[in-house]
């Protein structure tokens, strides 16, 4: 299995993307922001199309769109969280209506750019480019895999670096704010970071893997482990395990798409954890 180059590339990118999704996912689940992560993976496509319509590198459009929308969601969401936070943390919905409205508008813009690109002269090549940008994990080249792994590793390191204050700000925002932790900045910065992860993961392995790996292993880790840093490590470990298991399964059964296999294992872990704890 490892003698195939596409498999080595998939494993390299997949391992680190899974690690990043698992670790950031733990905070995403803690803060109730799975919907935000989902929305960020949707705005990647309009971003790439807008770049195609403007005639610039589509990757730039992709990252700008996810990071900008991430920051916007972070900014809007904090305002509403502060008003609606009635009881304990984690019980307040992180402003789902604002997220829904913003990402639907961005998708509407995507329809507009789709029409523009397809009627302009540079048309079809732009659409083809945007489609190939949303790859499958088995289609990565060596360079793409290394880039994906590096960005994912950087995002993981950054999440761990801001881990302690972010945890404090997520669990007890008011106490954290009183102690001088910049909770608002952390909230916006975290969703922007999530935007980077979403852009890279969507581009390298597809939006489906992002959502599956962000929500399921982290939710399982929340149920299985109480101590925060042990749970974060567990979330990363479960996500990587789901990735390896899924890739091996997809390699063994050719008719099974790799992303389906990975997500099936990850969601299986989550439902198993709800049965255990």
């Amino acid at each position, binding site marked *: 299995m490892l003698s195939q180059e596409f498999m080595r590339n998939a494993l390299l990118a997949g391992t680190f993307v899974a690690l990043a999704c698992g670790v950031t996912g733990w905070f995403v689940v803690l803060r*109730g922001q799975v919907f935000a992560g989902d929305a960020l993976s949707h705005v990647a496509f309009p971003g790439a199309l807008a770049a195609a319509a403007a005639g610039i590198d589509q990757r730039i459009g992709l990252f700008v769109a996810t990071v900008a929308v991430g920051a916007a969601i972070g900014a809007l969401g904090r305002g509403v969280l502060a008003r609606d936070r009635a009881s304990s943390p984690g019980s307040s919905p992180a402003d789902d209506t604002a997220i829904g409205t913003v990402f639907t508008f961005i*998708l*509407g813009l995507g329809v507009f750019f789709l029409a523009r690109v397809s009627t302009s002269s540079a048309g079809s090549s732009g659409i083809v480019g945007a489609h190939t940008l949303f790859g499958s994990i088995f289609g990565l080249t060596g360079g793409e895999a290394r880039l994906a792994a590096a960005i994912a590793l950087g995002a993981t390191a950054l999440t761990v670096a801001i881990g302690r204050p972010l945890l404090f700000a997520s669990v007890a925002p008011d106490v954290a704010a009183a102690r001088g932790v910049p909770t608002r900045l952390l909230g916006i910065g975290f969703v922007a970071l999530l935007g980077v992860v979403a852009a890279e993961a969507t581009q390298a392995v597809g939006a489906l893997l992002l959502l599956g790996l962000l929500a399921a292993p982290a939710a399982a880790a929340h149920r299985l482990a109480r101590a925060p840093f042990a749970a974060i490590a567990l979330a990363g470990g479960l996500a990587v395990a789901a990735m390896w298991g899924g890739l091996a399964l997809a390699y063994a059964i050719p008719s099974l798409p790799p992303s389906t296999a990975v997500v099936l294992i990850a969601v299986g872990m989550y439902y198993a954890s709800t049965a255990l704890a």
Partner: protein
Amino acid sequence: MPIRTTPTGTVRTPADAAHPTLSWNVAHDVAQVLEYHFMLNALLAGSVVAVMAGLVGWVMVLRREAFAGHTLSMMAFPGASAAALAAVPAAWGYFLFCAVGATAMGWRSGAGRRVSWSEQSASIGAVQALALAAGFLFVSLYGGVLGDLENLLFGDLLGVSDGEVLLLVAVAAGTLAALAALGRPLLFASVDADVAQARGVPVRALSLAFLLLLGLAVAATSQITGVLLVFALLVAPAASAQALTARPLASLVLSVALGLLVVWLGLGLAYFSIYPAGFFLTTVAFAIYVLARLISFAAGRTRARGAPADAPAQPTGVID
């Protein structure tokens, strides 16, 4: 003013309306739009859906279930691909998967005790990932290209047939009747689930029933706006209305009115442009939402400034 010839006997199609011109005479413009049967159907279907989405969406926003609504709209993907695999109409697969997804989410969200929001959002995410994964599997098993994928994603508003209008009216009537029947207990359970449960309201059954209704509404709305843009009618009008007024009945009526405004304005603009209707629907909806948030923000500021200085300290903002 040019002489308008009313088409008698001949059926006019979108191709005939290739070059409509917008003038400053609003009455003429409206008459020009209404001349075409396909526009009339689109407006009718859009209005029916706007009323239903305005009401169901209002409850959805109140219950903070936008993520669940989005996940239900994603059920179109496994639904359509499973239907292609089984060689049945796509709508059957869609409705079936919507029901399955609603049941899965309702079962998780009400498992014995009240689940925290973080747990709930994670379990909805898991359901959606599972549904999309199933969709990918079906597509790869099917091996072919899904026809009408773009219509599924972005809607085919200008191709609504008479039969589809009737179907939408029937679905809307059924959904609204069920919503009216659930009305009071549903509202009670949405506003304060704990008290409602203590009073013997079947909170869990209500939540499941509402998710099923939401599935119907999402499936019907997606016929107009496409799967990706359902929130233009489902969330934006309701969220705008709830930002503008806190009185339930007023915001409910406002939600429906704003939904109708989005459809009429969006369709009218799309008629005079070469760009797709979905873009105009979402843009109008988003503009209304931003405006509503700004108005409610400004109103909050004036109210805060108008409060007497020696009044007892109001717990504004954070209440812990």
